[in-house]
């Protein structure tokens, strides 16, 4: 009798449900009330007619509680007790509630779709490139400069210096750099210009030697190839830089090409190269180093352009296909941004909310 009266007075309205998108290990309880309480107690029982145990005490501002101590597929009943200094009110008994294991986390559906689309695009283009489909890649301006620089070095009777970064051949930038080296070696070999390739890793050296040799053979100048010009210097960052600086100052190459992964040494290389008056062409995806290359070199391949240049020159299906797939991704992003901006203009928040990611 007393209980019913309190229920009517208290006006605490409670809802309890299986927490969505989880492994069935929790039940969500929410409540709201017309009067204010200092704190709430959450009571739980396995049977509406038997004793309820206190499982949590929440403060007066809370309106939600996750009961994470439940067994899936078992019935539970809940009561919320609102407490003030003098007053204690109870809500109605809520239940039975069961928690269940969900198969798919619907919160992440948007992420899943995005990943699936990107995967599909990349795989699709790689397959197309492999089956011999023509994929267009725009010409990269700095590549024209590359040929000019080699031409100028030839006219001046000076060498070309090629620095493939300071990382090993497991670095994608180094791999991209090697494709460009192949083209540079072809050009220098056909002109008979000397090409220096100092490397900071021994594996990078053997790979560079192999590539340069092949390129020389390809243009019919196997005699031009000189393995002594492609040397391993040292793994040590600053040690490597001072050795390369030494080549620049002593041999004064007319063209310095820095393509690959660079760290703090970028600015030391670019400075020394500049002081020798060489044409400098740089390219790296290390965005922290790009500013120094842009400021001190004549041409710079910015970020992804390094990969694009490599794909353009090598025409290798994996590189071409991935680049194409990523291009599609960029196109989609541009479209999404435009729709997003328009949706804000016309006060349509649905689209914005499609991109929510944090779990509530």
């Amino acid at each position, binding site marked *: 009798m007393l209980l019913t009266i309190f229920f009517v007075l208290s006006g605490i309205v409670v809802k309890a449900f299986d927490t969505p998108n989880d492994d069935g290990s929790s039940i969500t309880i929410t409540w709201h009330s017309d009067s204010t309480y200092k704190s709430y107690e959450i009571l739980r029982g396995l049977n509406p007619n038997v004793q309820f145990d206190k499982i949590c005490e929440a403060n007066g501002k809370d309106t939600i509680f996750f009961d994470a101590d439940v067994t899936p597929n078992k019935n539970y009943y809940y009561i919320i007790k609102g407490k003030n200094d003098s007053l204690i009110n109870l809500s109605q008994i809520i239940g039975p509630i069961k928690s269940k294991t969900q198969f798919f986390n619907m919160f992440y559906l948007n992420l899943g779709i995005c990943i699936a689309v990107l995967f599909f695009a990349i795989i699709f283009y790689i397959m197309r490139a492999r089956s011999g489909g023509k994929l267009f890649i725009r010409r990269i301006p700095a590549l024209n400069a590359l040929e000019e620089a080699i031409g100028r070095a030839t006219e001046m009777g000076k060498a070309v210096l090629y620095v493939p970064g300071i990382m090993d051949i497991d670095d994608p930038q180094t791999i991209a750099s090697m494709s460009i080296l192949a083209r540079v070696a072809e050009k220098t070999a056909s002109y008979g210009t000397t090409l220096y390739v100092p490397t900071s890793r021994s594996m990078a050296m053997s790979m560079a030697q192999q590539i340069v040799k092949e390129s020389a053979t390809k243009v019919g100048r196997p005699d031009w190839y000189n393995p002594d010009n492609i040397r391993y210097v040292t793994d040590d960052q600053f040690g490597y830089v001072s050795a390369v600086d030494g080549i620049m100052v002593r041999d004064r190459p007319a063209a310095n090409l820095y393509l690959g992964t660079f760290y703090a040494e970028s600015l030391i290389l670019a400075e020394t190269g500049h002081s020798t008056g060489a044409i400098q062409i740089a390219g790296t995806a290390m*965005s*922290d180093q790009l500013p120094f290359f842009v400021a001190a070199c004549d041409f710079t391949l910015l970020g992804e352009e390094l990969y694009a240049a490599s794909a353009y020159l090598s025409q290798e299906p994996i590189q071409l296909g991935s680049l194409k797939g990523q291009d599609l991704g960029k196109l989609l992003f541009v479209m999404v941004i435009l729709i997003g901006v328009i949706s804000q203009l016309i006060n349509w928040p649905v689209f914005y909310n499609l991109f929510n*990611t*944090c*779990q509530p």
Partner: protein
Amino acid sequence: MNLIERLSHLDRRVIFLLVAFAVVIPMLQPIGLPIDITKPVKKVYDKIESLAPGSIVLLSTDFDPGSEAELYPATEAIIEHCFRKNLKIYVMGLWPAGSDLGNLALNKIAPRYNKNYGTDYINVGYRPGGAVMLLSLGKNFGDIIKVDYQGTPIDLLELGRAVKSSKNLGLVMTLSAGDPGILHWIIYFHARYGVPICGATTAIMAPQQYTYLGSGQLVGLLGGLKGAAEYEVLVNRKGRASIGMDSQSIVHVLLVIFILLGNIILLHQKGKR
């Protein structure tokens, strides 16, 4: 040979000397230039001010001696602010040397505020594994952290027992010098577990963080020594960062002159041709 030509052949050691003087002299004879407060720094300050006493701040010291100059002053300033607000500090490091540099600051500041190890602050040392570790950490601290840096089982420490999951944290403050660091806290920890992140980074990393400030994934930011100096002004403590600001100003002016001179030389040479 005229002046400009002589300048263009200046020995670099002369430049080195000029830079050294520009740093040393203002330190011996401070000018006391006023330090302005930027928004991202104020936001870090406001965030810590807004935390209720007793809240736990995870201080991740993700740097090493290489960037100690930029990040250590910020470490001290943040710790001092937290202790003053009676917040609890949970130190860990994604870089091996980070936690020892954190200890240096803790041991210096904790006694001033009568804070005790184990209840008011703890240090759980270096945690390898970067991004993947952070994902596991957010779910269950117990999986990753079993002992503190001295080898004491974490459950014997009051603060160690208090932190079981990301839900127990009021804020993550990372002092980040690179990889792994602030980016991983944002992408791997904040995105999955929603704990607010503040950061102090080296100045090199600061411009990139503005994309995350813009999206709200990062609450506030102390960029480089200047950020630390601003924070020192906010918490009213005369530290290493504010002392260095005069020198920083003079060298910047010197370098601006260098760049302008260099380009005048370029124009001059072009004119000649």
